[in-house]
């Protein structure tokens, strides 16, 4: 079984978000980048398939050379090989087209991508890959078992979960719940050393127009001061929520 895990290189969750060039670009200076958390859950599940079912796991990113440390981290966690498609990731659709090309050429059985990236929050790449490669698609995946060609998965739905069955080739949108938090791995020294020996292949992109273009960013308005209510005067809280905020 060949698994491809799509890795989005995103600012660490604690990052302050700033913009440069007249608010037209994300300002990466001083920002620590990490594997998108939803991808990390997927990668961890892929490691299980590698160890239990001898799956071969490749990680991939569409981006510039600056994303390579993030791919190396995925290799240190245990992926067998990495691919970087050398293109600026401008929008979800063009990224999906780059990924779809690699998937078709590489004959992968299972594609794991995150439900959404925590930077642009597009929530579109996994579904678009599935559409472009004509694979089955399970979003919000919180459980995955594969036996030969058949797949059993659990998916989170509003207010609960559902169990579904399908076949390979498959794309999943992974999220928290797919693995236990305690299963997440921090690369150890040996992993980091081994990662240096593993192949990181750089591929040139195919032509893909940006379907959407980011033109400007804005930060939320600074919030007004909080109104504190004494715990002895909760009627006042109800009054404020009813008459001022009009939410109850």
């Amino acid at each position, binding site marked *: 079984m060949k698994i491809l895990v799509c890795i989005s290189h995103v*600012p660490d*969750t*604690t990052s302050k*978000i700033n913009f440069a060039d007249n608010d037209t670009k994300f300002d990466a200076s001083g920002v620590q980048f990490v594997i998108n958390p*939803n991808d990390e859950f997927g990668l961890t599940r892929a490691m299980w398939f590698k160890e239990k079912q001898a799956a071969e796991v490749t990680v991939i990113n569409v981006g510039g050379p600056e994303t390579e440390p993030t791919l190396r981290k995925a290799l240190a966690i245990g992926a067998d090989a990495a691919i970087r498609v050398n293109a600026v990731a401008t*929008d*979800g*659709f063009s990224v*999906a087209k780059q990924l779809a090309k690699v998937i078709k050429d590489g004959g992968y059985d299972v594609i794991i991508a995150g439900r959404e990236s*925590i930077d642009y*929050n*597009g*929530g*579109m790449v996994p*579904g*678009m890959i*599935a*559409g*472009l490669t004509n694979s089955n*698609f*399970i*979003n*919000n995946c919180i459980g995955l078992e594969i036996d030969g060609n058949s797949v059993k998965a659990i998916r*989170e*739905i*509003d*207010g*609960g*979960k*559902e*169990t*579904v*069955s*399908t076949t390979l080739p498959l794309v999943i*949108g992974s999220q*928290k*719940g797919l693995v236990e938090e305690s299963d997440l791995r921090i690369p150890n020294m040996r992993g980091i050393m081994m990662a240096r020996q593993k192949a990181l292949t750089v591929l040139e992109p195919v032509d893909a127009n940006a*379907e*959407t*273009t*980011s*033109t*400007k*960013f*804005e930060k*939320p308005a600074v919030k007004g001061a*909080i*109104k*504190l209510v004494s*715990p002895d005067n*909760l*009627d006042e*809280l*109800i009054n*404020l*929520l*009813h008459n001022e*905020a009009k*939410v*109850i």
Partner: protein
Amino acid sequence: MSVLVYTESEQGKFKKVAFEVASYAKTVANQLGTTVTAITINAIDTSKLGIYGVDKVLNVTNTQLDDFNAKMYANVIKQAAEKEGTKVVIVSSSANSKYLAPLLAVELNAGYASNVISVPTSVSPFTVKRTAFTNKAFEFIQINTDVKIIGVSNNSFGLVETSGNASEEAFSPSIAESGIKVESVDKVSGQVSIADADIVVSGGRGLKGPENWGMIEELASVLGAATACSKPVSDLGWRPHGEHVGQTGKPVAANLYIAIGISGAIQHLAGINASKVKVVINIDPEAPFFKAADYGVVGDAFVVVPELIEKLKAFKAQQ
């Protein structure tokens, strides 16, 4: 040419988001000088859509579509878009719509903007404002394709009533192969889900243990709210994963978010900041949540919450 809006229903009844996206679609149609067509799947009574600006309803009834299936539904919407010659398709930000929209984008070769929070700031070039960086910023994006898909963020636009009437037209699209079979559904019935909720009551590690969630559930029930929790609470197994909200959990865009015993870490706030009004109840006046909320009570949750429940019950009884 009309604007096409996908109005979701569950067991035949429209979800609230259906009326919100219809209201949104009406405004976009006005900007473009055209009408609104709604596509509905197995809805029982479509007359209400007229109130929210829909001019025509394509009502698909087919038992093969009884259960939601992203691929089949996306294909039905695609056929409706082609039939109407639509250039703008509008969907909600429900889990189901977010599941099908990227598939629809591929089918229609359309640019898709998700988490959109206001009507287009310009229709030429077609530009919308969306949230990015998990609510830490807004992004203006231009959709360059001929056909465009907009995913409207929940509770960002609200409901707008007009005095219109929607005509209904039967529509029998061909049905695609599903590829995926639903084996079983495990859903707590009678509970408000976080995605649909106007009000969310959320508990953190300050509540000490799962046995103390009774008061959270009771407060939620008095308010008709959904219950949620912080990440450590679900990691510890006190509450199910589906209740975890924040940057790596579910996003919450409610009208009212009440945080009880939650410190207000940046990852938590990022996921709930799109909520309109935030209330914090925390024993520690230094908790960061007090900088992010609109209203706050410094106090012990085990004293404040039971009292708040009693007072709210009295308030509700008066209403």
